């Protein structure tokens, strides 16, 4: 396919034309080369390095802008107050403390792709299936990792003693309201692997989040907040989930024999590669909040489409993901 001698006035055309005309053979030619390199210049297992900026949005309690290659995601976290008296079905007492955030719906992540981030997503339309799946997956990771401590979201009130109370009884503390975190994720530019970038933006924004000190005002019968910065406290994430996605480019086809198929795993696929890959694997690792602390455990392994990724390949990818996770944590920690 590649011609090494420029013979005659044959019809030669440059790389990007080749890529646009026949994307599949173009990627295949790169991967089959003696020194295989992906068209974007990366190695097969090479992730794009993220750049992370936090705290740039004025009206958010916490925010982050994450750029991974040509994918850019901005995330803003905003706290609003849910009065306990407004909850239609109060959680039952046997509910486990760590499931409270999910039960009450105190974390509301929404991802928006229709911002003109790529020509494929028409602005003004309701979220596509892709956007909805991404929102769901982000909320699942936030809930399953239990990274947000429900105590950080409670607004408690110590009831004053009444005459009916026994004198030696300790004052009763009740939760009057909860902070609800609206996590809005806007994809400003999309070049593949929106999930990894979006989750990174969410965790970075949550780490940046500070909530004002809030208390129950019995006279006004409402919650008041203190505007003083020194009174506010930051959200302590108990764990930090990091996602690493892989795509599989395969020549397998139902029209071919099984043995003839060749497959390559591409870490952190860009938009061009994503178009050509049917099979994807996402590994979410969960670990302590700071660099080097705590043990890393697997939170999620999600694979769909195709038949290449089996147990061995997953093992390999989990190892790559754990390396990736420590890189990300360093990037977040050094900020």
């Amino acid at each position, binding site marked *: *396919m*590649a*011609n090494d001698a*420029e013979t005659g006035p*044959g019809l*030669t055309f*440059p*790389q990007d034309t*080749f890529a646009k005309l026949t994307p599949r053979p173009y990627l295949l030619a*790169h991967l089959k080369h003696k020194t295989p*390199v992906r068209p974007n210049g990366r190695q097969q297992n090479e992730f794009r390095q993220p750049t992370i900026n936090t705290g740039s*949005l*004025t*009206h*958010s309690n916490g925010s982050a802008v994450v750029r991974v290659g*040509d994918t*850019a995601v901005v995330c*803003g976290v*905003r*706290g*609003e*107050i*849910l*009065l306990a008296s*407004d909850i*239609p*079905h109060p959680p039952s007492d046997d509910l486990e403390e760590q499931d409270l955030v999910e039960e*009450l719906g105190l974390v*509301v992540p*929404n991802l*928006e792709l229709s*911002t*003109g*981030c*790529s*020509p494929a997503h028409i*602005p*003004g339309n*309701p*979220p596509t299936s892709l956007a*909805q799946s991404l*929102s769901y997956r982000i*909320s699942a990771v936030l809930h399953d990792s239990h990274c947000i401590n429900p105590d950080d979201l409670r607004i408690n009130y110590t009831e004053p003693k009444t005459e009916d109370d026994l004198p030696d009884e300790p004052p009763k503390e009740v939760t009057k309201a909860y902070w609800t975190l*609206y996590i*809005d994720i*806007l994809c*400003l*530019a*999309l*070049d593949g692997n929106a999930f990894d970038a979006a989750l990174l933006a969410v965790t970075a924004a949550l780490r940046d989040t500070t909530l004002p000190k*809030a208390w129950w*005002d019995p006279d006004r019968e*409402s*919650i*008041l*907040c*203190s*505007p*003083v*910065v020194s009174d506010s406290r930051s959200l302590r994430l108990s764990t930090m989930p990091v996602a690493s996605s892989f795509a599989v480019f395969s020549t397998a086809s139902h029209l071919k024999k099984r043995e003839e198929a060749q497959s390559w795993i591409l870490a952190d696929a860009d938009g061009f590669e994503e178009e050509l890959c049917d099979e994807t694997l996402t590994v979410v690792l969960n670990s302590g909040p700071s660099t080097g602390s705590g043990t890393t455990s697997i939170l999620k392994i999600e694979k769909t489409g195709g038949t290449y990724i089996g147990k061995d390949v997953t093992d390999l990818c989990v190892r790559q993901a754990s390396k990736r996770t420590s890189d990300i944590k360093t990037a977040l920690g050094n900020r």
Partner: protein
Amino acid sequence: MAMLADRRRMNAPPGGTSPPVFASLPEAKLTKPIRTRNPDEHRKIFLRTGVVPSASGSAYYEISPSNTPRQTLVPSSSSLKITCTVHGPRPLPRNAAFSSNLLLTTHVKFAPFATRQRRGYVRDSSERDLGVHLETALRGVVIGDRWPKSGCEVVITVLEGEEDGWWADAEEGGKAGSWGMMNVLAGCITVASAAIADAGVDCVDLVSGGVAALTAERNGEGVLDPCPSEHDIKAACVVGYLQSRDEVTEMWMKGDAGSGSEALIDNAVKAAVLTRTVLAEAVKEATEMKIGKTSEAAVETTNTGKGKTKDIQMTG
């Protein structure tokens, strides 16, 4: 409070939530910001094109925030942050009616966290209104008849909007005309112009947006680029202005300017001239970079044969 559930999104808890109410504490004294720059001085603008590689053209516009350290959790003012992407010109769908001109569509949306009050996900009337204003500003600039049967989408996301006034005034039941919208529109015009130039759509000139206002503080004297939280605005005007042709493609005036309306427009044009220098600079820079790249690429393609550049030859 309970909103209708949107089944395409994660919804707020069924009880409904309300934004936090801040107590007025003596240790967190709020002072209204004061304008420190001259009346005819524009705030610093940051403008860069080509921020979204997958789009035909794109630009990012920011009015740098004032660098005062935050004493309170309540921001005293906010600045503008706008991104714009342009898709096209691309062929219209087959079922669309014939059009001899380029069909320009504009779309303005605020991010949910763009303003003090959380914004909804669906475009509201003010956002649609901004879209229409922007479209009129751009339509006179683009040479539409060079692109028959084509469409071009201009998509703007406002990451952070200008405020309509000093928020503490508004809270006390004071006036809160939507002055911030005017600054947003001026920003939209400038950023869209940069993105359209980046997309390589033929234009007669670069259009730039400018705002001027009449304020209560200086009787009669207007200010350029008013920051609504610093002023008590009586009337304001925003224009989309083509400097080299001395044409105004869009004008939007609000408030009671009385006899000063002409001076107000002149001031808005002056502000547009100021933003134009930034705009022209950004577009020029981007173009120079592009030219540099193509000449580099040209050099590269002549050296094919080795390296990862693979040309394909068609035979037969």
